[in-house]
């Protein structure tokens, strides 16, 4: 499509002659570090979160290695605490939270609504720097002794009893949090004010509804975490006693604040994933989504309900039984919009012209894993059952099914689906189709045994366990290896495709949506002229033949 790649970087030619895209517009390092182009910021985020993902995975791998044997294997209890803490901190705040919103969201929000950029491009760049500074501080904490509080920083353990690098980690998360907030504000404002002519709210792709709901959570939940972490820091330095019962404070208050953020934060991670899936499914089933408005409002309902369920993390922390009942019921309510989404996605497949492309395989894997994660969530929301399986591997398996099985699989699916648009290249379909099932199998092998382990009573965060549990732990660690290979394959062929992949063309999937109506990779200002939308979203019935590379 573009010939820009063949033009050497000499004196700039007139734009009319050379169709540059956002990657070739300017090529100095400084032009990348000071860019305000949402597409370039997407690339910056993609590089940085991939690096953090590698760190976080390494920690997870060492945890699984330690759990191979009942005796704790090759690490001490203290090292083990640091490993799972840093795994959680890095994966939650420096990979999952920014994963889909800051990469695909940054790239697609302006493109999908037909805008030239986000509303506040400079703030967008600032978000990345805040994220990076926060992440670097977490890494500094890692090399200066690590943190061993668990990613939850429960008081008074984190404030009084531990001598690890809590303070610097907390400050790092605080700074990165403001990056998240600014991203959220940017997307909300962009979607409200910058939709092109004809792009009504109900013509927006469902991905944008999910990003909108996510942004609302980012803006309303993250500040609560920020102030709570400040209080933890203050208490740690001066022992002030807000969360210390000996000094008149209340340790459960910390848990309320923390989960008031951290439960909605789970939806920051998975809602964008739930938004990627209908894009993929509609494209490769060549159909309109079943229940567009239901899916859109389900996103908003999840965002709203997400703020009303936090105390289900505290059923055994001494909250009153009536509060427990209310939060148990509210938590089960989250299953309703989640189920609406899953049923709608499945119903969209019905009588569709289904193409089993790589993104489609990831989307189907997502549905399978998300259903398991969601249903075990309902089990955990049950007050009586939670008392039994609270803080066991059942919980660990449940939230990994949502956050890794759900969010990460959707992220990979989205990366595959929009890879031709972002890079202008096609990846190897063969290897992509190979990696998706490997990830699915490896994933289930890793985490399904943990449901059994948890139900049998193995608590989380211990590096030793009774020998009876070894077979499940060995299964889990074996699965982790397969999963690791599954993640390594896309890493290789996606990088390979950057140089050797065939050129994708503007619309390789013959998909609807404004992002496919502009060249791949898009020019710096996205569209040659402001597009005008005249049809409903996902108008696949207007397309004659489904042409795909599959």
């Amino acid at each position, binding site marked *: 499509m573009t010939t820009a790649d063949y033009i050497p970087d000499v004196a700039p030619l007139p734009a009319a002659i050379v169709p540059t895209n956002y990657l070739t517009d300017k090529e100095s390092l400084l032009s990348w570090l000071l860019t305000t182009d949402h597409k370039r910021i997407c690339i910056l985020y993609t590089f940085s979160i991939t690096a953090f993902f590698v760190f976080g995975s390494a920690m997870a791998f060492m945890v699984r290695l330690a759990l191979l044997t009942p005796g704790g294997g090759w690490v001490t209890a203290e090292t083990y605490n640091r490993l799972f803490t840093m795994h959680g901190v890095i994966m939650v705040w420096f990979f999952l939270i920014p994963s889909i919103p800051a990469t695909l969201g940054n790239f697609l929000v302006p493109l999908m609504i037909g805008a030239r950029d986000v*509303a506040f491009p400079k703030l967008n760049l600032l978000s990345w720097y805040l994220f990076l500074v926060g992440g670097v501080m977490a890494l500094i904490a890692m090399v200066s002794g690590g943190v061993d509080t668990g990613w939850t920083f429960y008081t008074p353990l984190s404030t009084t009893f531990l001598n690890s690098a809590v303070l610097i980690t907390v400050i790092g998360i605080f700074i990165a949090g403001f990056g998240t907030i600014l991203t959220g504000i940017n997307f909300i404002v962009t979607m409200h004010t910058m939709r092109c002519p004809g792009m009504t709210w109900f013509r927006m792709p469902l991905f944008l509804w999910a990003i909108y709901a996510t942004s609302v959570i980012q803006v309303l939940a993250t500040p609560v975490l920020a102030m709570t972490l400040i209080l933890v820091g203050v208490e740690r330095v001066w022992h002030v006693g807000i969360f210390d019962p000996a000094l008149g404070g209340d340790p459960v208050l910390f848990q309320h604040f923390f989960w008031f953020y951290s439960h909605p934060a789970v939806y920051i991670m998975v809602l964008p994933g739930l938004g990627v899936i209908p894009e993929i499914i509609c494209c490769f089933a060549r159909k309109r989504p079943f229940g567009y408005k239901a899916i859109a409002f389900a996103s908003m309902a999840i965002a709203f309900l997400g703020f009303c369920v936090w105390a289900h993390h505290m059923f055994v922390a001494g909250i009153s039984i009536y509060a427990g009942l209310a939060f148990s019921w509210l938590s089960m309510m989250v299953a309703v919009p989640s189920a609406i989404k899953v049923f709608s996605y499945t119903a969209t497949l019905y009588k569709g012209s289904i193409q089993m492309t790589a993104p489609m395989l990831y989307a189907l894997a997502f549905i399978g894993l998300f259903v398991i994660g969601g249903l075990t969530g309902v089990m955990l929301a049950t007050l009586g059952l939670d008392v039994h399986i609270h803080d066991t591997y059942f919980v660990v398996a449940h939230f990994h099914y949502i956050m890794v099985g759900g969010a990460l699989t959707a992220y990979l699916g989205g990366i595959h689906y929009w890879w031709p648009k972002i890079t202008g290249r096609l990846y190897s379909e063969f290897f992509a189709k190979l990696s998706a099932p490997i990830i699915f199998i490896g994933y289930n092998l890793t985490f399904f045994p943990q449901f059994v382990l948890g139900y049998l009573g193995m608590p989380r965060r211990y590096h030793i366990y009774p020998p009876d549990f070894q077979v499940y732990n060995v299964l889990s660690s074996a699965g982790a290896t397969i999963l690791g290979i599954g993640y390594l394959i896309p890493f290789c062929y996606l990088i390979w495709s950057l140089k050797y992949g065939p050129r994708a063309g503007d619309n390789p999937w013959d998909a609807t949506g404004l992002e496919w109506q502009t060249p791949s990779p898009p020019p710096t200002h996205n569209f040659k002229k402001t597009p005008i939308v005249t049809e409903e979203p996902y108008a696949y019935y207007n397309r004659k033949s489904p042409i795909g590379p599959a």
Partner: protein
Amino acid sequence: MDPRSTDNLHLHEQFETLQQQEYAATLGMWAFMATEFLLIGVLFVAYGVCRMRWPEAFRRGSSEMHYWLGFFETAIILTTSFLVTLALRAAKLGNNRQVIALFATTVMLGAGFLTIKGTEWYLEYGEGLVPGYFTTIPTKEAHLPPDQQHPRPVQERLFMLFYYLLTGTHAVHMLIGMGLLSTMMFLTARGKFSASYHTPIELVGIYWHFVDLVWIFVFSSVYLLRQ
């Protein structure tokens, strides 16, 4: 809009019209206010929860506040809110000289507020109300001889801690607001704003009103709940 209009100088490239840009900027500011509201909200909730736990100690703490000074601070805050509103009106009328005068008065009154606040903190220090976390660690105090222990019970010191957290956070926001107002004065003097373009003035106004609103809650919940 006439494309040759000088107002287009203010139009950023990602927007189509100045109206769209103004709408975006205003909405962004309100979204940021929602964030700020929840940020400060944590402190108020924590304060409320601890006050419910120790109503008597917190009542004693409140009754030791210099509430006349608080009253003057509140009067100053309400006056500045009024002045900022007048400044927005002046900006809409294109009266830049008046905008500068009103903002200058606001900044000076803000400095006055912080001076009174500082005086208050100084007086409290003299009265031994500072919780004293810097000098002794409360959890280890029980092992110290009585004359080295803090004279007040931990619950009252907790109240003072919240007082410093709330007023301190508010003071930081005041300083940011004064910086923003000064920047607006500078930009107005440079002729950046006109009757048709003065969005930044409006946004700074929103911020300033928010900071004032926080103070009203601080004053009523920390100073006035004394009986």
